[in-house]
């Protein structure tokens, strides 16, 4: 599914709950997505005014 979507793919040796066992890997992929978007974000981004919800 990831390949057919032409996605950037990272493979991690982990079980299903990888966000618990390898949170750095998940955050690394999100960081990579952010970096890849910088061209479009600079021209279209707005400040997020809503408070952080954790």
């Amino acid at each position: 599914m990831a390949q057919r979507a032409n996605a950037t793919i990272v493979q991690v040796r982990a079980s299903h709950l990888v966000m618990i066992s390898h949170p750095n890997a998940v955050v690394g992929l999100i960081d990579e997505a952010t970096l890849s978007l910088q061209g479009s974000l600079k021209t279209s981004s707005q400040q997020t005014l809503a408070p952080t919800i954790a």
Partner: protein
Amino acid sequence: MKKVIPLIILALLAVPASVAFGSSSNASNIVKPSVVLIHGAWADGSSWSRVVSLLQTHGYTVYVPPNPLRGLTSDSAYIASFLQTITGPIILVGHSYGGAVITNAATGNPNVKALVYVDAFAPDQGESLASLSSVPPPAGQSPSCVSGDPTQVFNFVPLNGGDVDLYVKPSLFPSCFANGISHPMREQSSHRPNARSLSVPYHSHQECLHGGQSRPSTSSAPLTMSFHHSHNCSWLSAPTPPSSRSEHHT
């Protein structure tokens, strides 16, 4: 497995080391989108707790709305409504069943700039979870542990209207769903039920598409995480040949 190893190497080579290992040095001084994390079935937002802490340290605004787990259509509609409350660019992240939800919820929202799938369903237009789940698991991997006799896997809680909530039996949860994580964290793996109407596909091979929750804890088979850019999710409604796409990262 021989086919997988080169992919792992390629992935690591393609991702800067600072990113691959979670450092935000390259992403710390740039415009940050909001990150919305959608949990999967038999889970809740606490499954993202470690990721939330790291993302906030990296300067992201993070949202973890509940995935209602009542059915793909209504779940997606709820998350789509939630996304409408966020101003500015969004990276939408889904785990497991949450991948199907983000795929639908992002459609038509121009603020959603990227979709991140964490061992998750990434259905194309017209595909159902049932059709994806019917794909046999990769060679050497077992069917999903929740694909067996439902009466042996789930506890049933009747709901008004005839539906039933399915809870993974406590005796199976650590080895079936929370395998591969340390014992104390298994206890932290919150467990929310799914409506049976949602869970029908899970009676098939479901998570084994990416070698997910069905694997024994000793398995070292890699699972897949991925992202792709979302331009109003145009790839969902009008898939284009890979050769014609501009955002091709592998």
